[in-house]
């Protein structure tokens, strides 16, 4: 119950969403962000912002520039960055 509440809070705090064309790149983005000590949570891809792969990644929108730079440096291919607060 607490874990569930914690996850909801985390999802609310991470207002950025990055979408991908394929799941490899979504998974790799999560792996790269976490290894760098950043918060990242995979979520089912919101249909309204991407028709592509099944998963997207929530991140701290305030870190958008650093995150984008890190993904570029790690050869991660993404579709687009969004400010997309969690609805719930």
């Amino acid at each position, binding site marked *: 119950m607490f874990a569930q509440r914690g996850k909801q809070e985390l999802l609310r705090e991470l207002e950025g969403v990055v979408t991908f*064309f*394929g*799941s*490899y*790149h*979504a*998974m*790799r983005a999560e*792996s790269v962000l976490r290894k760098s000590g950043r918060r990242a949570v*995979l*979520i*089912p*891809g919101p249909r309204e912002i991407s*028709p*592509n*792969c*099944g*998963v*997207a990644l929530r991140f701290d929108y305030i870190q958008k520039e650093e995150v984008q730079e890190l993904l570029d440096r*790690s*050869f991660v*291919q993404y579709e687009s960055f969004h400010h997309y607060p969690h609805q719930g």
Partner: protein
Amino acid sequence: MKLRYFDNAATSWPKPPAVAAAVHRCLVRGGGNAGRSGHAKAVAAARTVLRTRELIAELFHVADPSRIVFTKNATEALNLALYGLLGPGDGVVTSSMEHNSVMRPLRHLAHRGVRLEVVPAAVGGVIEPAAFCAVLTAGTRLAVVTHASNVTGAVTDVARIGEHCRGLGVPLLVDAAQTAGCVPIDVEAMRVDFLAFSGHKGLLGPQGTGGLYVRDARALEPLLRGGTGSRSDREEQPEFLPDRYESGTLNTPGIAGLGAGVQYLLRRGVASVQAHERRLLEIFLEGIAAVPGIEAYGPADTAARTGVLSLNVTGLSCSEAGSALEDRFGLLTRVGLHCAPIAHRSLGTFPEGTVRFGWGPFTRERDVRAGVRALRTLAGERR
């Protein structure tokens, strides 16, 4: 009778216990199809596949794990590279020590108008970089070479060939079926453009796993096209890696096991496995050196060899020798031509073949000494 497994060059056994545990965990607690959904099980499967990809990238010094493409074995990886790159009129250069997983696609492509040049190996089945490079030109479409022979274990100096190829602008495809996990590989330092590897030999994973490292993402036409879970709004194959070359559901349980095998190697160190297998080879060679009636093949320098040895016992066909080794001594070897007729022609052992011993990271010195004793007995009986 105790069985001793000496056929690691065909498939490694035993595996680290973590390999079977990972396959079991994937089947029992896993479920879900990587990349096909956003639910917890699909995400867990995709994470499993990513983890193995990252580990293999680390093992081969690949900065971008998306360049590691999973296939069902090294043969499929080689076919992907050869059919993906070569067309009528293209020139390809290879060696006379190749396995049929290279020679059969190349002979088939030659019938379709690919110009094939086969560079003969030197004494002992060694591929001389200078002789190999001498026939390359800036117009050569592809150079293909085995990193180590599956018959003699002779290791090719790929770095020297790679340096020459890169200078000419000729892509280099390396067949690492016999070396991945047994000989250190750095694709950047060795200037390799494509590296085909088996998952179930030196990498200690389950059968049905293998892959191809691809340096230039779009260099190849895909071998298969189909569902990837990505760009599902389009009817054309995605262009990005790894999806461009990975259509259809992956062997996720196998890949989970492969990840555990590679993890074991990263912890132990490939150089340590190489040193272990070299020590076993030296014990074996020392043990049979003074025995009349045993002819061993391959280069004299054990530093340029894997843990594979081919030999024949005078007066016995290789199949008679192999049967006697199994029936009387419990030693499991591989006899015949080892799917490499051109390599046996190069060694002068065609069409009879040889008895092949292949050691692995878990072979013990006492196993090898038992092999030496059995061969001494067999050779002694024929005199």
